[in-house]
């Protein structure tokens, strides 16, 4: 299963040939190829392409190639992600513009999209003076963006059957809980009584839900490109699915994405009420505080299971990354948060 990462030179040669073919270009030069961090299971390459077209016109594009490092069962295909980015753009969500769907040049499914400059490193966004203005605007922007995400017409873009959705006869909440519980049971190398308590708590309190919508599924600091003026682009759509809009409103408030700014639940920059107000004002669904609390608990459970999953990639020998190895020890922080969120409603 494990595949050695291609070198930048290998990737440059393959992308050069691909772009030359796709643009029917006289010549193509690919420079500055580098593997970006983040997206542990999949690869994201950044590069510049100077294209000399058949008519003599020359342009330089700053691009990103998103490729699958390994094909995970049930994960979104690159072709779906490409069309989802098109749909999100059409719906007014700030996303990178797609450039070309790939072929088999890289030996793995891929597509190209524009590279949006800006900051993704959470600590800089939350600490540096440069982003002070952005921090003041972000909470409202995040609410407005989520309202746009939840209004994207997946039917009109033919995405309904390509995206994961609620299980037959079950609500989004019940379906997502069942999925995360199954994942937990199949991958956890050791028992986690704190997660057992959380699963029990969640099963007893399933929220009612309205019409399912497009949910980004990983809407948080780290997956947003920020400039001094605010949010520039929403990245990492590979966990998008059809579900309960309250899920995104809660996920962006998971404590781990506050990076120490504990008193500012919305991505470490703002208050929930301001997020909810902006979301509703921009045409989002009516916010149900009880449901959001349920998704808060669910979100911490989910992040905990993801920590285990990432550590499993190391434990199973798929990766030797020190980052994946140590993330296994971050499971405890999600357990702690779960206990805090449940306290009062569990102790008899």
């Amino acid at each position, binding site marked *: 299963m494990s595949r050695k990462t291609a070198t930048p030179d290998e990737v440059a040669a393959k992308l050069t040939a691909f772009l030359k073919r796709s643009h029917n270009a006289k010549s193509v030069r690919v420079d500055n190829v580098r593997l970006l961090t983040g997206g542990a299971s999949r690869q994201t390459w950044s590069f510049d392409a100077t294209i000399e077209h058949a008519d003599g016109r020359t342009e330089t594009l700053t691009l990103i190639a998103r490729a699958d490092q390994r094909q995970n069962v049930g994960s979104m295909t690159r072709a779906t992600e490409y069309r989802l980015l098109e749909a999100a753009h059409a719906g007014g969500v700030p996303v990178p513009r797609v450039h070309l769907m790939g072929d088999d040049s890289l030996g793995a499914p891929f597509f190209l999209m524009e590279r949006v400059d800006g900051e993704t490193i959470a600590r800089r966004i939350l600490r540096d003076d440069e982003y002070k203005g952005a921090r003041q605007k972000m909470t409202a922007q995040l609410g407005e963006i989520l309202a746009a995400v939840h209004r994207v017409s997946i039917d009109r873009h033919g995405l309904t059957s390509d995206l994961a959705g609620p299980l037959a006869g079950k609500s989004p909440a019940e379906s997502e809980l069942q999925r995360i519980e199954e994942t937990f049971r199949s991958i956890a190398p050791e*028992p986690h009584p704190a997660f057992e*308590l959380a699963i029990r708590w969640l099963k007893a309190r399933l929220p009612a839900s309205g019409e399912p919508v497009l949910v980004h599924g990983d809407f948080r600091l780290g997956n947003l490109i920020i400039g001094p003026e605010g949010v520039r682009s929403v990245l990492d759509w590979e966990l998008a699915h059809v579900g309960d809009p309250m899920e995104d409103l809660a996920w962006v408030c998971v404590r781990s994405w506050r990076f120490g700014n504990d008193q500012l639940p919305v991505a470490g920059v703002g208050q929930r009420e301001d997020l909810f107000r902006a979301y509703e004002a921009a045409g989002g669904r009516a916010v149900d505080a009880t449901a959001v609390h349920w998704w808060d608990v669910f979100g911490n459970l989910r992040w905990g299971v993801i920590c285990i999953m990432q550590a499993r990639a190391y434990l199973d020998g798929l990766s030797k990354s020190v980052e994946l190895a140590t993330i296994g020890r971050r499971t*405890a922080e999600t357990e702690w948060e779960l206990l805090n969120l449940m*306290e009062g409603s*569990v102790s008899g």
Partner: protein
Amino acid sequence: MQDRPSYDELLAAVEHFLDTEIVPNVPGSRGFHARVAANAIRIVRRELSNDEEQLAAEWSGLDAVLGPAEPPAGREELRSALRERNEALSTLIRGGDADDGETARKVFEHVQRTVRDKLTVTDPALLERS
């Protein structure tokens, strides 16, 4: 018995090297991974100094929930027996036996204590903030 430096002193040297020589001088993802590596060493150092005490505390906490039992001798045997007892605790919770009443309170407090112990090793700063 090995000579000085002790394992903790050796790890401290590696941690210092990563923090002062590598992290500030290596840009990009490699520098980030050096930061992660230095943090992994801090976790290991805290674990080595707390391990024995924490395993014993977890065992006696489980005694209060599952009924008393004699801990096995030897660190690895103790770990493996703790794992089994945590499976038993998980089964008890899954079966609804810790949903309410006295058992719920005891189980919750025990789980809270063991998670706190894990965090004193993996992320003590988080505990200080909460």
